[in-house]
């Protein structure tokens, strides 16, 4: 839209309506003035729209720190690597296993990838232990993740809500009982997988130490717990984090760290309240000053 043409059109309309013809010099002046006005009006509108977008952008909360995000990313990549190189060994009879080993360049390549995945899992376990033991942020997160009585009440409330007995959703804090379950399940899984996995990895070393049946137990536990963990991740964790109808098909929060205000209120109302209260007291304090 050209402001000058628009102004010309307006003047013509006015002339036709009143049945007059304006002086050429005045007409030119008027046209320029109207064009200027239109131009500034458009710019104002644009600025306003931009500000609105920015304001909406501000309505996000940072849910996860970069540290947590990187821990999760390392864990996720490591575990996926372990699953895709581990399952073909468990299901070695299947055609897919053969296809996979052909594709990747043999079972020897797959073994190396599995150990890279294992190293990532062990690394992130150590990293996380240091994080929750020696950083302020880590200690706080750990405290938030400890199970408490409210989680069992929330669980009960959620069952009633899901069954339609009540319309009141349980009010979660920073972590719901579902998220806490996922967190603690990883401890169980990592302890079993890493211990049994290390025995199998360094079998030549451990052969001098453990009797043969320990290796049999390690192999069985590694294989069975792998299955349990894979199913729990693919079915349970992915449903609750990504595939449930509220967020389907993908929840970027664990990767970007950001969560929208709307989701914050719906999913973590108590944390939202706490943050808002803190903000309010901060503002009050600064006002007093």
């Amino acid at each position: 839209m050209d402001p000058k043409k628009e102004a010309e059109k307006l003047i013509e309309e006015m002339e036709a309506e009143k049945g007059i013809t304006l002086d050429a010099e005045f007409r030119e002046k008027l046209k320029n003035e109207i064009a200027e006005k239109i131009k500034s009006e458009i710019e104002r509108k644009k600025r306003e729209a931009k500000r609105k977008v920015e304001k909406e952008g501000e309505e996000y909360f940072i849910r996860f720190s970069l540290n947590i995000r990187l821990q999760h990313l390392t864990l996720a990549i490591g575990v996926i690597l372990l699953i895709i190189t581990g399952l073909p060994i468990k299901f070695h009879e299947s055609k897919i296993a053969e296809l996979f080993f052909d594709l990747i360049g043999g079972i020897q390549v797959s073994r190396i990838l599995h150990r890279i995945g294992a190293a990532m899992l062990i690394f992130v376990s150590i990293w996380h232990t240091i994080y929750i033991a020696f950083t302020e942020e880590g200690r706080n997160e750990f405290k938030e993740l400890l199970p408490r009585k409210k989680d069992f009440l929330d669980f009960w409330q959620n069952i009633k809500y899901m069954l339609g007995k009540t319309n009141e959703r349980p009010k979660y804090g920073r972590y719901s009982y579902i998220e806490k379950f996922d967190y603690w399940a990883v401890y169980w899984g990592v302890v079993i997988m890493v211990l049994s996995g290390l025995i199998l990895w360094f079998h030549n070393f451990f052969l001098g130490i453990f009797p043969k049946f320990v290796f049999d137990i390690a192999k069985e536990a590694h294989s069975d717990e792998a299955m349990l963990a894979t199913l729990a991740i693919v079915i349970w964790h992915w449903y609750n984090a990504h595939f449930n109808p509220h967020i389907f098909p993908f929840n970027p929060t664990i990767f970007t760290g950001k969560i929208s205000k709307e989701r914050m209120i719906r999913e973590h109302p108590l944390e939202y309240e706490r943050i808002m209260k803190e903000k309010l007291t901060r503002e009050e304090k600064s006002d007093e000053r």
Partner: protein
Amino acid sequence: MIWILMFFILIVNQANSQLKNQRCFVCHGVKNFGIVEQGKFKSLYVSKEDFEASVHSKFACVSCHVDVRVIPHLTKPQKIHCLQCHFEGNVVGAPVAAKPEKYKESVHARALAKGKNAPDCKDCHTIHYVRKPEDPNSSVYKTKIPELCGRCHQTIKEGYYNSIHWTGITRGELSAAVCSDCHREHDILPPEDPRSSLNPKNVVGTCEKCHSDVKLMKRVGIPVKNPEAYKESFHGIALKFGVVRAANCASCHGYHDVLPSRDPRSPIHPANLAKTCGKCHPRANENVAKGKFHVLPSEKESGIVYYVYTFFKWFTLIVLVGLFTHIVLDLVGHIRRKRKTTGE
């Protein structure tokens, strides 16, 4: 070359009429019949009774010796070869079930072609007295095979005679393995050949022919699930996907002199296991004997491993049923609420 004909009586028949075997035996049926060839006596005697008990008794001598047209024949008949008849698709009905043609690819045929001393058909099957392998008088009857192969492979024969397989044969268990059960009969190939029954990739399949046979293993009192359990092991899986240095059956059990674990000479006797495993796993010690071998975790005999298996089976089932129920409840609840709000 000197020819000495010992007998010469019969009327000479003209070429086209078929010569009866009877006429051949007039000369060849005499025990001392023979020639001196390169200074050595060479018998040309053929036992009539033995020939008539052979699978070829219905055939005329001249069916094979086609170049003998008149009697007495004055020239040495051409050498004949069994594969003249025993080839795939022959019209005379010569059996080829054991694939005699494969002999041509075998180590024996290749050695022979290089001018080495190696057996061909007649060395195992005899020339004129071929009988069915099932016939106890056959040169290739099961119990005679180790002796037959042992004529050349002497040290291996001695090792084999110590094995549990030969003990089985001597006890009358004729399903026990002899040379040909593992090495095959005609297409004997070196283990390096991927087609060989004894190539590392094929060893398990070769042992399994008998050791996965439920009836046979029950009869001889050996657990039949051993090969299956082996295939589930890391050794078995690695081997299946081409890691040929992974242990196969023979790596631990030995082969010609294979013995059960209760025999102190056996490499899998508990006292010898450390040494046997130590061939690949240098730190192996007496610990490797403390556990069960070739038992599936799903079987109670596997002891503590069975309980680990059972624990995880139920634990996984219960956890997943719980998680799945939670997901279904969540989904159903969500759909119900959505329908309510849109319905209002």
